[in-house]
């Protein structure tokens, strides 16, 4: 047994987190910043933060993840990191020539209290920021919230620095996709295009975190939302913010700053959440949903009915991020599956309420000590048929001999998430394919010879 020390009996913990179901803010800010075209994320802290975030994102995407660091030393920790950041800004614009440097802080620079806007302003006055180039920032203290909070903060930073209302509406709809995969962002754009809705989607990591192998290395790939588009987001007709945790703050700022009204929706994962997204997009854009989208929806419903026998009544344990889990649980209920245990390390009371609304019988916990150790203990007490979560779940899945469907962050040991979406109807079909595949692979493995079947 790999996790041989996990006892079934749950003892109350108040201080120790074991096997976390979250990580820290800065990595979310770094990921979001890759969704701006020509942007170099910059970590204002010790070298290790940047190295760790780059490594984690690289392992998840198998793509180059180039970001810089202020390389704090003991001296900068005592006297503040101003000179490090000034030097970094000069070096970055000279050597790497990005259009934007997106600075996020760390627990170190937050504890010291470095004032990033003041330092960036000084850099500009000292001529270290070339004309037409930008230094934006967001605060991401690692001891507040989680990686999702950091993502949300950087998206908010994009609105804060760039979006402006010129008084001329552009006829577009903003879509804030939340922390989803590049493939998902691409899928959202595809759906909007099918509906002939003009959109501004940001951040957009498609084409950045799932690039081709051509023999050419582009430090700044062709993908990403342009600064011009994020500026123009202030002139859009409205904003659809996908996911309360990852997108709502930025959408609300667009509303107060540029008077662009917003609607916060669940991530369009699964049938019902995708229905709400498509319907909301139809209404805000004042358009009709084409038959081609209704066709995709119908295919999903068809698939649900074809394999309902194998999803019905199956118990599932889930761990991940709030926005994903809310929609995933709803989808599982749609399939007549039973979410039994739901864990997220990201804090938020509203999360537990939402999950209870969707699946009242589930065990649910969010925030501190809501970790995979607890999830493991819950599963030891009440076994499930399937686990849905990131790659770390494979240790529990192996010990407990329960099939695992990988979803969320990070996925370190399988390909697919970069290229194939789980949002939209097509995405739901892929997700369902994975779920059915996992359940039936297990059945085929375990069935005695006499009931081993060709046709299922």
């Amino acid at each position, binding site marked *: 047994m*790999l*996790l*041989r*020390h996990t006892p079934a009996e749950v*003892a109350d*913990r108040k*201080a*120790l*987190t*074991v*096997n*976390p179901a*979250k990580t*820290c803010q800065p990595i979310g800010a770094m990921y979001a910043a890759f969704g701006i075209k020509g942007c170099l994320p910059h970590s204002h*802290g*010790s*070298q*290790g933060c940047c*190295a*760790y*975030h*780059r*490594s*984690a994102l*690289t*392992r998840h995407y*198998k793509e*180059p993840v*180039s970001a*810089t*660091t*202020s*390389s*704090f*030393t*003991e001296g*900068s*920790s005592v006297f503040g990191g101003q000179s490090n950041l000034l030097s*970094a800004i*000069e*070096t970055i614009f*000279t*050597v*790497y020539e990005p259009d934007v440097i997106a600075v996020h802080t760390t*627990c*170190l620079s937050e*504890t010291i209290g470095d004032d990033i806007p003041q330092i960036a302003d000084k850099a500009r006055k000292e001529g270290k920021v070339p004309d037409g180039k930008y230094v934006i920032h967001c605060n991401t203290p690692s*001891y*507040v919230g989680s990686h999702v909070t950091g993502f949300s903060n950087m998206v908010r930073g994009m609105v804060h620095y760039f979006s402006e209302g010129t008084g001329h509406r552009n006829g577009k709809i903003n879509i804030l996709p939340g922390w989803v995969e590049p493939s998902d962002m691409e899928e959202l754009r595809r759906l909007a295009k099918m509906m002939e809705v003009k959109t501004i989607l940001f951040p957009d990591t498609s084409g950045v975190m799932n*690039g081709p*192998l*051509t*023999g050419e*290395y*582009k430090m700044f790939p062709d993908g990403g939302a342009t600064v011009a588009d994020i500026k123009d987001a202030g002139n859009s007709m409205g904003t659809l913010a996908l996911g309360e945790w990852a997108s709502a703050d930025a959408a609300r700022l667009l509303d107060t700053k540029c008077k662009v009204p917003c609607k916060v929706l669940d991530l369009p994962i699964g049938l019902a959440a995708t229905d709400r997204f498509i319907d909301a997009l139809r209404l805000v854009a004042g358009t009709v949903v084409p038959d081609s989208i209704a066709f995709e929806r119908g295919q999903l419903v068809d698939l649900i009915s074809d394999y309902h026998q194998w999803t019905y009544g199956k118990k599932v344990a889930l761990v991940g991020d709030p926005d994903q889990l809310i929609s995933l649980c709803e989808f599982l209920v749609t399939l007549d599956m039973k979410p039994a245990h739901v864990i997220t*390390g990201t804090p938020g009371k509203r999360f537990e309420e939402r999950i209870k609304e969707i699946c009242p019988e589930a065990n649910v916990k969010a925030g*501190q000590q809501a970790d995979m*150790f607890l999830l493991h203990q819950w599963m030891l007490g009440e076994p499930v048929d399937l686990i849905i979560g990131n790659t*770390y779940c494979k*240790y529990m899945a192996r010990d407990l001999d329960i099939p695992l469907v990988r979803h969320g962050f990070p996925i370190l040991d399988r390909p697919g998430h970069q290229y194939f979406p789980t949002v939209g109807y097509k995405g739901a079909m892929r997700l369902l394919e994975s779920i059915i595949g996992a359940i039936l692979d297990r059945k085929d493995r375990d069935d005695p010879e006499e009931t081993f079947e060709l046709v299922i």
Partner: protein
Amino acid sequence: MATTKKKKALPSPEEVRAEIISKYPPKVARKRAKQIVTPGEGQEGCAPEIMANVRTIPGILTMRGCTYAGCKGVILGPTRDIVNITHGPIGCGFYSWLTRRNQTRPASPEHPNYMPYCFSTDMQDEDIIFGGEKKLRAAVQEAFDLFHPQAIAIFSTCPVGLIGDDVHAIAKEMKEKLGINVFAFSCEGYKGVSQSAGHHIANNQIFKHVVGTDDTPPAGKFKITMLGEYNIGGDAFEIERILDKCGITLVATFSGNSTYDQFARAHTADLCTVMCHRSINYVADMLEQKYGIPWIKVNFIGAKATAKSLRRIAQYFGDKALIEKVEAVIAEEMPAVDAVAAEVAPRTTGKTAMLFVGGSRAHHYQDLFSEMGMKTLSAGYEFAHRDDYEGRSVIPTIKVDADSRNIEEIEVVPDEKRFKPRKTEAEIKALMAEGFPYKDYEGMMAQMEKTSLVIDDLNQYEAEKLIEIYKPDVFCAGIKEKFSVQKLGIPMKQLHSYDSGGPYAGFQGAINFYREIDRLVNSKVWGYMQAPWQKNPELSATYVWE
């Protein structure tokens, strides 16, 4: 005559250096110029001076990580039976959770193994404001109540040092309260200039708090320690297999596939062998000063290097049976190695490599490449010091700067009870006269070609430049460099984590490495990058639909 494409003459190393630094702001260029040298620049057969173990310039896309990573991740990461609690916000603990491919093999399913677990105090803003000591104390208690380990270690992250939590006082208090060993590391990420400081902090604390606490001598006639071996991809298993076959007892490994008890008994060995000179040579020195155990540098990366290292160990013990046994093992193992080397040679000979990794691997792996007939064009370390490049003879001349000064140096005196010189001075002298490399390491540059480039703390821009100029057949570095290199169509081998491969140490490891490099440099995938219409864009087709 073979039809080989005429290669354009390569620029001289000096020209390459000048081209690389021309892009930098003046201050950066001045500093980087001192970190890029060519062994040919050295005077009177000595290696030239290289600037190393200095701060990375902010904003430079460095490969380096932090002190916490070096301490918790590298040194303590591979030890399976200590509960390692990260005191800090959640990230540091999360990122160092199972990501280094340290393998471990508990004696039985009942033996402890905490490596698949991540323990953290997950500090919140109130802990930063009011101090995190209370939470840390409670976390240690909860860890004890849940797992009852024989030791608990506490690792400080950046904010801990700033807010002034006294982790050592809490460790002491909990040690007394719980009756198990509890110790702490002041390994805040901002200390030092790289992971190297973290290695030092980790090793110092293990030396102070664990080594020498158990005098039970393990059975065996020839007892050694292996210092600086971290069992990535199973390297330690292969080294253990070979040593076992030779009849050499491995008392302790620091720290691949290790346990707390191994550290506690390390002082009962009669010889220390050092793999990664950078991360641990000072522990070897301290073990000699305190307990009287001599040390030598070894290298189990490369079949020939493995054989040489085994012979050195046998030479030290001077036992005829052992010397014969070692020769017999080498003779038994080498045919399989030679067969695979010969098999891949037609496809690897004449190919070129670059290695930028770690504090020893960029040197060690040159042996494996040369066994395959491959040439190292350029190499450098991520976090090494001058002695790792130039040899130990420069140690007295290395200036201690402010960043190194804040890393604790332990004063070691001979242990009253346990100090016992394993060899007399005369015996050591006699061994040295026979060529025994007592406490010696000549560094990376001694082995490299005069026109090669040695670059310390290489960054992404420089890597791209090197590839553009030299077009190596394989580039070796870490995960962060992996895909920017491969996008250029150059195969990239991770020498931190070995991608998903290994072991590469010892005889079996050499075979694995030959096959892996053969696979990489001859993979068909690099030929797929252009579509047919990109290769022949002219619209000259004659196919007609009419």
